[in-house]
């Protein structure tokens, strides 16, 4: 049990790191992006830049939340 807990903790620390808000912001944005991607026509040229901008906005929000704590 101690090994399993240590193993899980290692991967949490490795993937999520010091600030879980960044991982949460990126995951949420990509889930929303996946929903949009699934609902628009293939080859929409605006989609990639919009998703890129959304990821930058998500990072900014997570940082501001972190700073205002």
């Amino acid at each position, binding site marked *: 049990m101690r090994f399993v807990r240590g193993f899980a903790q*290692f991967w949490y620390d*490795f*993937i*999520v*790191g*010091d*600030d879980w808000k*960044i*991982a949460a912001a*990126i*995951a949420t944005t*990509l889930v929303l*992006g*996946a*929903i949009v*991607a*699934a609902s*628009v026509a*293939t*080859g929409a*040229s605006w*989609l*990639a*830049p919009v*998703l*890129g901008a959304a*990821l*930058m906005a998500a*990072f*900014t929000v997570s*940082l*501001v939340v*972190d*700073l*205002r704590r």
Partner: protein
Amino acid sequence: MGSSTTWGLLTATFTASFVEFVEALTIVLAMGTTRGWRSALAGTGAAVVALVGFTAFAGYALVNWLPRTALQLGIGTLLLIFGLQWLRKAIFRSSGLKAMHDEEEEFREQAEAARRAGREERFGLDWFGFVVSFKGVFLEGVEVVFIVITFGLNAHNVGLASAGAAVAGAIVVTAGAIVHRPLSRVPENTLKYGVGLMLATFGTFWAVEGTGVFQSGGDSLSWPGDNWSLLALLAAWFILSRVLVKLAPAIAAGRGGAPRRPTATVIEEAS
């Protein structure tokens, strides 16, 4: 693969790996000088063996179990999260909200903890020195492995990505063996800022391409200008980070007026 992509791949894997190797070296040096070299080197060796096994498994699994678009989404997301963690710390450090990372200080803390720890022998080794060296090298090494595999697979050149990491490792190990102390003169904070920007750029590029797996047909999304958009993404992340460096002190102070530059570190966490 064009020469710009080749150099980009080499630079990215070399720089990211270099920083990770410097951190691992500090831990091993601290254990070696305080708990004995036999245990520290045994821990390092065991970590290298574990890393080889992990690399073989992760490389096989990523190549054989995932379609290309899903691979882009998965590894792009991981790179993006790693990169933004690095960028967050770089922004805090550049804005004065977090102390600059200092390998000498890190070495002193590790060595002090090692001196305070009790002595327990297992398999003829000092267990504290072995475990701390193993964990330090394995953790930093897994990050190197992820960066090499992800960059290498996406650029269809794992060999070149591995070469970048291997050269970085050789330089750090050689320098460490010669000077026998932490490589504190390496401009680590600047390198980390640069690596954060690179990982965020490539992570954004691939994660967004990978969301195409949810479209009919499952093909990657296309960026305008294809690989040239990497430069635009890099510029955008850089500009955003500089803006955040300027605004962070004021946001931390809870007001939008004149920024207040704290003299003390207000963000306390691991390096």
